[in-house]
């Protein structure tokens, strides 16, 4: 179960990406996050595992507040949150198996990960996950040898290898064709249902969201402006979220993306420190 309470993010440039966002995601619920580019969707999910540092508010996963944790504690808590990315974000030159096993990095000591000597249980589990996403034969291939849909399935297996209590999914289908998109969404929803895993899925495609999500939250300019079932997402609700074709929002979207990336880079530097 995930509670967000008064979550706020203001970038160094002074732009407020999130303003006082409060949400509860119960166990087993798949929640779609929609909204125009620049509404703060990527910022919101990155604030949960603190790839982007929130400026204020609380992020409660179970009964642990993730905001304000020290480096080591944050790493330990990140293990509980699996993340799936827009452009797959696999390590291209590593094998599929190494990518899946990298989901265990938070659990194993450095020497094990360095020598690729993972505990037998981890390896067994990685094979089991690869089988689940239908990539058993590809285990020894390099990640860059796979197609887009296959790569995203490796991404899913990697996130599940963490044994997460929550999935954060950032535009999982943005670079896939319509058919593959549906296959990936179906796989994701099935897996979440099997494990009773809550998920926040950041998604551009409204019809796709309506087809696969149990609940939809609409974000506009960093605020929650809609929260309901897919059936309640009427034309009026969509106008409330997206506005009547507001092209300025799109430009802001690019800016937000840039800021989120810059912030993530700063975070990486901070991690080093």
């Amino acid at each position, binding site marked *: 179960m995930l509670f967000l309470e008064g979550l706020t993010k203001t970038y160094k440039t002074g732009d407020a990406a999130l303003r006082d966002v409060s949400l509860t995601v119960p166990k087993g619920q798949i929640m779609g996050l929609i909204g125009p580019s620049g509404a703060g969707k990527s910022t919101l999910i990155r604030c949960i595992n603190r790839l982007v540092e929130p400026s204020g508010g609380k992020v409660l996963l179970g009964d642990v507040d993730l905001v304000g944790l020290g480096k080591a504690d944050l790493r330990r808590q990140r*293990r509980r*949150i699996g993340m799936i990315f827009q*452009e797959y974000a696999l390590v291209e030159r590593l094998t599929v198996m190494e990518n899946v096993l990298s989901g265990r990095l938070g659990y194993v000591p*450095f020497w094990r990960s360095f020598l690729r000597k993972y505990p037998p249980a981890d390896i067994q589990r990685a094979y089991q996950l690869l089988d689940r996403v239908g990539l058993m034969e590809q285990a020894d291939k390099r990640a860059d040898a796979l197609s887009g849909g296959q790569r995203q399935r490796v991404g899913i297996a990697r996130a599940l290898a963490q044994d997460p209590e929550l999935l954060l999914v950032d535009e999982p289908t943005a670079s896939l064709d319509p058919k593959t998109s549906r296959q990936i969404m179906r796989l994701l929803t099935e897996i979440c249902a099997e494990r009773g895993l809550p998920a926040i899925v950041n998604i551009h495609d409204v019809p796709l969201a309506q087809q696969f999500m149990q609940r939809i939250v609409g974000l506009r300019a960093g605020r929650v402006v809609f929260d309901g079932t897919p059936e309640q997402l009427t034309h009026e609700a969509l106008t409330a979220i997206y506005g009547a074709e507001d092209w300025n929002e799109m430009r802001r979207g690019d800016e937000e993306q840039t800021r989120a990336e810059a912030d993530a880079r700063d975070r990486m530097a901070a991690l080093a420190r």
Partner: protein
Amino acid sequence: MSAPDYPTTWRRPPQIIRDRRWRIAFQIGIVVYLILAIGSVEVNWARVYTGLERGQRFVLGFLQPDFDTRWRDISRGLIESLTMTLTSTVVGVAISIPIGIGAARNIAPRWIYYICRGIIAVSRALQEVIIAIFFVAMFGFGTFAGFLTLSFATIGFIAKLLADDIEEIDEAQAEAVRATGASWGQLLNYAVQPQVMPRLIGLSLYRLDINFRESAVIGIVGAGGIGATLNTAIDRYEYDSAGAILLIIIAIVMVAEYSSSYLRKFLQ
């Protein structure tokens, strides 16, 4: 209805200096400077004439290289040079890796970043010959000074290029590894290393043949190896032996060049 009158000519807008007059003045200025600068170089034509004869003997030496007379010196010099090249490259690269990581802005703390960039700047600012003279003065003539010189020069080269490479990695892959709860070391091993490794190996091989060529140069100032042999041959006006040495250097550099480009292709 007639179409609006669109222009039929278009010129690329000036990119650097907008004012046309300034642009022309600037171009004339450059030409005038070049003419004056070339005019200021003094050439002693009588000396050039006598030098031609020596040059000719040098070229003739090339055409009739003498491998035999000084073969023992040549082979000793070669072995020294190759040993120096290989050891200094290995040691230099080994030291460069931590310095290169430290000099990458996106993964190193700020203070370490400045220290490592400082080391790189010092190593790059000092040319091999200058370092060689310094080390020869400190440790005496011979290969040890050469080994130290080349190791030191390798650090500036490899560490800088490695650091620049690390700064340009795909952040998305690093972000994904970080999101799993990986530590800094694991991040380096899983997200950074796979992205920079092929280039690091390529650069090391490239540095290997640079070091071999440099070993011939620094030998002239006393740092041992084939350069010392070459220097002796030239001093004794034995241009045929010198020609033989130069031909051997060229052959070795070419072999290194082809084999390293083959290896690099294989690694991608």
